[in-house]
């Protein structure tokens, strides 16, 4: 096994930000699984962008030092040459596909590289077999589940026969079951001799398969040459086993006023005879697999859809924060965004200071990072003075420290209002939940308070969710 990637004194400084990487040295052997990790803004995505050539091709700044990929100097390689060696899987499912059809997407890179129809047919057949894509061919990409999209993205990244795969925060948009499934897939590809590089701040799905960990801190790199070495380092590696975290329990006495409720509600085939009350001062987390009806439940509360039968009892429209903040920001500045909710400058100022967003008050909402946008929305929820606040996957795409901040802020919201959260993020759930509602196939399967004795129940739900994914895989 030879050296696949070698970086020497690699540095990059952005034109308009202090972030970047400084004098990074490392070597990756063929066939290794390498984790790049660290907190957000530490430079791990910068490093990844250096590897796949987006730096310097797209991002402007100053690049120094040397980088060798498959024995060639990356400086001499054009983007299209580099990407014959490296396959990239990006984070955002919305922007990583170029077409709306799975087959078109799979052949898109080969068309760009001028393959003949015959070559493409051979390759497509091979990928179909390797990544179990039989049921996915010639479908609208929009209709795929997040797990299916991940498989397609993976297959696309290997169309040119790439032996090195780069993943950018794959766990950000995958639920627990799908992330574990990705972990097994990576293990399989490792056995086939592929080199896998994963940049992520969650890595529970890589437990036991990491050969090398590159830990970034403020643009500086620390290399751990084995998983054990990484685990025994001072860095907080509890993320390897998410079930072992200890967040404590709220153990609130829940006797708040009932402010909203569903009574025997059914909607199409999605929600079946569901009764659920929401109380002030209580944070209710809805868990369940994709398609279990979680978002539909939220839409029923916010009167976006009408139930076929049953009664919905809400005094006023809840404040519903949907999954993608980008559709929900209308203001000309962060401050202006909040005045649209409540025109009370002193409260807005106080709120921005609490959220640590005060320095951005004149910035355009779209200039904020994902975590900041999410917190701006929480700010809106704090100002809205509504009894019921609903969040749909508030932590998707967030790193651990942003997630922890958001958790704290949602907990504070839960002191005054009834908060309902849809989430599959285990750590986040442990941080915020007072009560767990497990939705399965449109029914409420379990509904309990989260405390020490009920913790086992929550863990079992997660194991069950993962098992469902496994069954899905054996069906493939």
């Amino acid at each position, binding site marked *: 096994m030879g050296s696949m990637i070698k970086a020497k004194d690699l540095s990059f400084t952005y034109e308009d930000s202090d972030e970047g990487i400084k004098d990074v040295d490392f070597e990756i052997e063929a066939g290794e699984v390498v984790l790049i990790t660290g907190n957000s803004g530490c430079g791990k995505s910068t490093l990844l962008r250096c590897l*796949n*050539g*987006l730096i310097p*091709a*797209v991002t402007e700044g100053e690049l120094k030092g040397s980088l060798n990929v498959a024995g060639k100097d990356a400086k001499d390689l*054009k*983007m*299209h040459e580099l*990407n*014959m060696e*490296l*396959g*990239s899987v*990006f984070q*955002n499912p*919305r*922007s*990583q*596909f*170029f*077409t*709306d*059809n799975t*087959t*078109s997407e799979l*052949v*898109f*890179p*080969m*068309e*760009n*590289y*001028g*393959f*003949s*129809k015959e070559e*493409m047919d051979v390759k497509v057949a091979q990928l179909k077999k390797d990544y179990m894509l039989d049921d996915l061919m010639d479908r609208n990409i*929009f209709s795929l589940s997040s797990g299916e999209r991940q498989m397609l993205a993976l297959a*696309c*990244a290997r169309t*040119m026969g790439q032996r090195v795969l780069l993943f950018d925060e794959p766990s950000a948009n995958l639920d627990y079951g799908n992330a574990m499934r990705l972990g097994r897939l990576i293990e399989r590809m490792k056995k086939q001799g592929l080199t896998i590089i994963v940049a992520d701040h969650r890595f529970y799905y890589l437990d036991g398969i990491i050969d090398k960990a590159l830990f970034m801190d403020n643009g500086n790199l620390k290399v751990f040459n084995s998983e054990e070495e990484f685990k025994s380092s001072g860095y907080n590696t509890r993320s390897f086993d998410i079930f072992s975290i200890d967040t404590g329990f709220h153990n609130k006495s829940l006797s708040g006023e009932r402010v909203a409720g569903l009574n025997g509600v059914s909607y199409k085939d999605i929600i079946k005879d569901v009764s659920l009350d929401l109380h002030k001062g209580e944070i209710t987390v809805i868990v369940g697999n994709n398609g279990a009806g979680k978002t539909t439940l939220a839409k029923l509360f*916010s009167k*976006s859809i009408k139930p076929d039968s049953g009664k919905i009892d809400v005094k006023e*429209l809840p*404040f*519903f924060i*949907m999954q*993608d903040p*980008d*559709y*929900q*920001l*209308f203001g000309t500045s962060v401050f202006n965004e909040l005045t*649209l*909710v409540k025109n009370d400058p002193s409260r807005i100022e106080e709120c921005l200071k609490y959220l640590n967003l005060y320095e951005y008050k004149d910035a*355009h909402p*779209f200039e904020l990072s994902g975590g900041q946008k999410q917190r701006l929305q929480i700010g*809106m929820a704090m100002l809205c003075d509504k009894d019921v606040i609903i969040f749909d996957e508030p932590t998707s795409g967030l790193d651990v420290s942003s997630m922890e901040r958001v958790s704290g802020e949602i907990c504070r919201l839960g002191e005054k209002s009834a908060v309902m959260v849809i989430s599959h993020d285990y750590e986040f759930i442990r941080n915020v939940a007072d009560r767990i509602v497990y939705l399965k196939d449109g029914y409420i399967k379990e509904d309990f308070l989260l405390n020490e004795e009920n913790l086992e129940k929550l863990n079992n739900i997660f194991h069950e969710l993962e098992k469902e994914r496994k069954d899905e895989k054996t069906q493939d």
Partner: protein
Amino acid sequence: MKWLNINPIVLILINILAPSMYIFVNGSYLQVFLAIFCSALLCLMGQFKKLAYFAILYAAMYGIYLLGFSVEFFRFMSGFFAVLLQFVPCLMLASIVVSKYSSTQLLSALEGIHLPRVLVVATTVTLKYFPTFRREFKYILESMRLRGIAFTWKKPIESFRYFIVPQLFRCAALAEEVTAAGLVKGIDAPVRRTSYFELKFRFTDSLVLCIFAAGIIGGYIWAA
């Protein structure tokens, strides 16, 4: 009998050229020729349902057009329907193109005529995001409702602003991500792009084009 398969490029090309041919050819001749030509194509392709549907449409519009000569009430509309009638044969072909092929396949097929790579890549992006944005405009309306700034005709400009601004800024943010996704998929490779869905130009395709050309040239000579 096996139905005829015609390369969509042929249909697209006919549609681009046909409606403006009355610059050279007598209008009523062109109208009859196109109606017969396109109906014949639909028959050969086995599209009888579509043909029947368009025949009814054509007859109805022709009826109104004729009425315009005798009934005062229809006079104004007559000219308009005369224009619309011209487009019915092309509409027939267009409906086949749209129903039989996906837009990506069509684009890919069109690469046979050596379109610039930049345009192909850009149009691919547009074709993907057009339906996406249409869907997302609904999300934006919904989120406006939930924020208590629902679209209202009382404040059209403000409502329009809330409606359009998130999507425009999202485009700017998306551009970078989509570019990155494209570059790692080789959109900048300096070779001629190939096409998975490229359809061979067969003898029948050339024959159809020849008949079309002959009809137009024939009409030109006949009128002269």
